C-alpha cells in the first residue's frame, strides 16, 4: 500500500494548500490519494467546511454514528501550516453520537500544520477495521499499521509510545480507552494535552478501531505571495506582542477567567444549581501559575504561549503532568464538581485527558451524577460501594473509570447524559445541563440570555465557541431579551469561520487582529485576489444551514422542539451570588427563538425555508428537506444579510 502511494506527488498547484486528499477504507485497508479539486477547495475552504460537506453528502441519514457508514473526517484548513497569523488548527468531524447529527471539533497544537507539510488537506476514514490500527503518514508513504500494542493505553501514554517508536518529529492524534469503548463524549488527544474534545469524535474514531494517526511532513506549502504574507504576519506579530492583553494571556492563559465568570454570575457551580462558587480563588489562574506551572506551551507558530503545562502532586496519587486547566475545565471540572483546590482540578483534568474524555461534557456529566447522588437518585450500591460527592477526587476518578469501562450505571453515562437521565428517572432530565445532548460550556445562560440562545441554537449542541455573548449581555443588560438574536447569528458566522480556515480565534477576540487581516492573509496565501469577507461569511451561513438541514434530516422536525434547554434554565432562579435572582421564562425563550428564526430566514418552527437555501446555493438541500416535509415557510421577509455586528471592537 505504501509502495503504491510512494509515487510522484499528485497534488495540484493550488497555492496555500497541501494539494491532496486521502480516503482510507479501514475494512479493506485500501488508501486512495486524490488531488484536491480547486473548485471544492474554494467553495468549502477546508477544516470545518470540508467536514460539513463530506458528512452531509456521504453519511446516510439513518446511519448509526458508531457504525461503518459514518465517516471520520480530518481537515486542516487553508491557513493551517502557512506562514500566516496563528494557523495551527485541525478539524476532526463525524456524525456525532451525542447529537445524532453533524459534529466537529477543532484542535490546536501541531497536527494540522504537519498534515499540510505532508501534502494533505483532507482525510476521510470509511468503514471499520478488523482489528486495532493506526494510520502512518510520512509524506507520500501512507500505511495502515497494526495498533495492538497501543490499544488499551491512555491517550498521553499512546502518544508517548508512538513518538518513541516512530520518532519525535511525528505528530500524533490518538484516542484513549474511552474512545475505544465508544463513550459518546470521548475526545481525540494530541500534543500531550490538547483535544478535539467535543461531539464524541473520539468515540467514532474508536468505533472504527483507529487508535491513532501519526504524521510527518517534510515539505513546505506553496504560497502565492510569500514576501507579502511575511510582511503582513510580521506586522501582526510586532503589533500584538506589545498589546496590553498579551502579557496576561502569556502568564495565565484562559484559567484567569474563573474569577471573572464567578463575579459576573455566570460560573456554573454544583451542576449549574447556582452561578457563584465561594472558594473560587483556590482554582483561579493565580494559583495555577503560583503552584503548578512548569512552563508555557504554544501551538505551531504562535507567539502567545497561552497553554500552561503543570505538574501536580496530590497525596496518594501519582505525580502527573497536564496541560491546563483551561477555563472550561476550570469551570466544568472545577466549581461545577465542587473542587476548590487547583491541584484537584488539574488532576481530574489529567484523568479526563488520559482516559480520553472531553473535560467539558465529562465534567458536566459527572456533576449531574453528583447532584443525582446528593438527591438520592443514585445509590452507593450502584456506585460499586463508592460515593459521588462534590469535591471528591477519588469519587470523580472512580466514576470516570465506571463510565470508560461501561460498568453498571457507568454505561448509562457513557451513552450520554440524556440517556442516563432517562434511566435514572425522577424527572432528572430537567437538571441536565445540555442542549441536543451536548453538555453546556462553562457559562450559565440564566445570567446571560443571549448566551443561552447561543447554546440553544448551536449546530453541535450547547457549545460556546459558535457564539459567545456575555459581554453583550453585560452591556445591553442581563435581563434584556429582545434585540440580541441578530448578534448571535452574526457570531455564529464569524466565530466558526476560524474553524473553517483553521486558525486561532483568540487573536481576533483578544489582541485585535482583524478579520480583514485574516482575509488578506488568505488572499496572499492562495492568490485568490477576489476573496472577500462577504464570501467567507456567506460560506459560514451556508454551513450553518447545511448543518441545520443535516440535524433535521437525521433527528426529525420541527427544529424548534430541539432548541429548548432543560427546565432548570427557564424555571429556576439563580439562588445565590452576584447573579442571584436571574431567571428566564419559557416566554423569554420563545421571544428569542422567534427573533432568531426570522433573522436566519427560517420558519416559525425553526426549519430552513426554500428561499434561504436557494439563496445560499443549496437547492438540492431544499428538495431533500421538502421530501421529508421538513422545509418551512419563511416567517418574515428573507433578510438580505443574516446577522448583525454588535460592536466592532467587542466582536
Amino acid at each position, binding site marked *: 500500500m505504501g509502495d503504491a502511494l510512494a509515487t510522484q506527488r499528485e497534488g495540484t498547484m493550488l497555492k496555500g494548500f497541501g494539494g491532496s486528499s486521502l480516503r482510507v477504507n479501514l475494512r479493506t485497508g485500501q488508501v486512495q490519494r486524490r488531488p484536491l479539486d480547486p473548485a471544492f477547495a474554494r467553495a468549502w475552504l477546508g477544516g470545518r467546511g470540508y467536514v460539513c460537506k463530506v458528512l452531509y453528502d456521504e453519511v446516510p441519514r439513518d446511519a448509526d454514528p458508531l457504525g461503518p457508514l459514518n465517516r471520520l473526517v480530518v481537515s486542516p484548513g487553508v491557513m493551517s501550516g502557512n506562514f500566516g497569523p496563528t494557523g495551527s488548527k485541525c478539524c476532526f468531524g463525524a456524525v456525532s453520537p451525542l447529537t445524532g447529527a453533524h459534529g466537529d471539533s477543532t484542535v490546536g497544537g501541531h497536527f494540522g500544520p504537519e498534515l499540510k507539510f505532508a501534502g494533505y488537506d483532507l482525510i476521510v476514514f470509511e468503514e471499520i477495521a478488523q482489528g486495532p490500527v493506526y494510520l502512518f503518514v510520512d509524506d507520500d508513504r501512507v500505511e495502515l499499521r497494526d495498533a495492538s500494542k497501543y490499544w488499551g493505553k491512555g491517550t498521553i501514554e499512546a502518544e508517548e509510545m508512538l513518538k518513541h517508536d516512530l520518532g519525535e518529529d511525528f505528530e500524533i492524534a490518538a484516542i484513549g480507552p474511552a474512545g475505544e469503548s465508544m463513550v459518546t463524549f470521548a475526545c481525540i488527544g494530541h500534543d500531550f494535552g490538547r483535544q478535539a474534545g467535543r461531539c464524541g469524535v473520539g468515540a467514532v474514531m474508536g468505533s472504527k478501531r483507529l487508535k491513532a494517526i501519526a504524521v510527518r511532513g517534510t515539505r513546505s506549502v506553496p504560497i502565492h505571495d510569500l514576501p507579502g504574507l511575511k510582511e503582513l504576519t510580521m506586522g501582526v506579530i510586532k503589533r500584538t506582542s506589545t498589546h496590553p492583553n498579551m502579557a496576561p494571556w502569556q502568564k495565565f492563559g484562559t484559567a484567569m477567567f474563573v474569577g471573572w465568570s464567578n463575579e459576573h454570575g455566570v460560573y456554573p457551580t454544583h451542576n449549574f444549581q447556582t452561578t457563584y462558587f465561594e472558594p473560587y480563588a483556590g482554582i483561579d489562574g493565580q494559583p495555577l501559575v503560583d503552584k503548578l506551572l512548569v512552563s508555557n506551551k504554544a501551538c505551531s507558530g504562535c507567539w502567545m504561549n497561552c497553554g500552561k503545562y503543570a505538574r501536580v502532586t496530590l497525596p496518594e496519587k501519582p505525580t502527573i503532568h497536564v496541560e491546563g486547566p483551561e477555563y472550561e475545565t476550570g469551570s466544568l471540572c472545577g466549581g461545577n464538581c465542587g473542587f476548590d483546590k487547583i491541584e484537584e482540578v488539574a488532576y481530574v483534568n489529567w484523568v479526563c485527558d488520559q482516559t480520553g474524555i472531553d473535560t467539558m461534557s465529562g465534567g458536566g456529566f459527572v456533576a449531574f451524577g453528583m447532584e443525582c447522588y446528593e438527591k438520592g437518585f443514585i445509590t452507593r450500591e450502584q456506585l460499586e460501594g463508592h460515593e459521588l460527592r462534590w469535591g471528591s477526587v477519588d469519587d470523580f476518578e472512580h466514576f470516570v473509570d465506571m463510565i470508560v469501562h461501561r460498568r453498571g450505571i457507568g454505561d448509562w453515562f457513557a451513552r450520554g447524559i440524556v440517556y442516563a437521565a432517562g434511566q435514572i428517572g425522577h424527572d432528572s432530565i430537567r437538571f441536565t445541563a445540555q442542549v441536543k445532548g451536548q453538555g453546556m460550556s462553562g457559562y450559565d445562560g440564566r445570567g446571560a440570555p443571549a448566551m443561552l440562545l447561543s447554546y440553544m441554537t448551536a449546530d453541535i449542541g450547547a457549545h460556546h465557541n459558535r457564539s459567545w455573548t456575555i459581554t453583550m449581555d453585560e*452591556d445591553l443588560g442581563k435581563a434584556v431579551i429582545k434585540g440580541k438574536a441578530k448578534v448571535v447569528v452574526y457570531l455564529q458566522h464569524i466565530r466558526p469561520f476560524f474553524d473553517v480556515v483553521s486558525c486561532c480565534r*483568540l487573536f481576533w477576540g483578544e489582541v485585535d487582529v482583524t478579520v480583514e487581516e485574516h482575509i488578506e492573509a488568505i488572499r496572499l496565501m492562495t492568490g485568490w485576489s477576489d476573496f472577500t469577507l462577504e464570501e467567507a461569511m456567506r460560506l459560514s451561513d451556508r454551513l450553518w444551514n447545511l448543518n441545520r438541514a443535516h440535524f433535521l434530516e437525521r433527528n426529525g422536525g420541527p427544529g424548534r422542539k430541539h432548541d429548548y434547554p432543560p427546565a432548570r434554565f427557564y424555571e429556576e432562579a439563580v439562588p445565590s451570588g452576584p447573579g442571584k435572582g436571574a431567571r428566564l421564562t419559557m416566554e423569554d425563550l420563545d421571544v428569542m427563538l422567534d427573533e432568531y428564526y426570522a433573522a436566519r430566514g427560517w420558519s416559525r418552527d425553526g426549519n430552513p425555508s426554500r428561499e434561504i437555501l436557494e439563496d445560499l446555493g443549496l437547492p438540492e438541500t431544499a428538495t431533500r428537506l421538502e421530501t421529508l416535509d421538513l422545509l418551512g415557510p419563511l416567517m418574515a421577509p428573507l433578510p438580505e444579510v443574516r446577522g448583525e455586528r454588535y460592536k466592532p471592537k467587542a466582536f
Partner: protein
Amino acid sequence: MKIVLKAGGMLADYLKPDPVTHAREVEAGEGQTLRQILESIGVPPGHVAMAFVDSNIVHLLYVPKEGEVVTLRPPVQGG
C-alpha cells in the same frame, strides 16, 4: 496623583488610550480604588475582567499608587 492605565480590545473603546502605546495617563484621587477611578473616566468596571500591576492580578478594590501602570483587560471572548 497620576497613574497610567493600559487597555486594548473593547476596553479601548471606553479608555481611548494612545493607539500605539495603548496607554493613557489619568488623574486619580488619593485612596481611590481602581473601580472608582474607572467609573470617574467612563470605563464600565463590568467590562474589566481583571487588572494587572507588574503582571500580578489586582482587584477592582485595589488602590493604585502614584505613577503605577495598571493594565486592564476585557473578558475572554469565549475561548
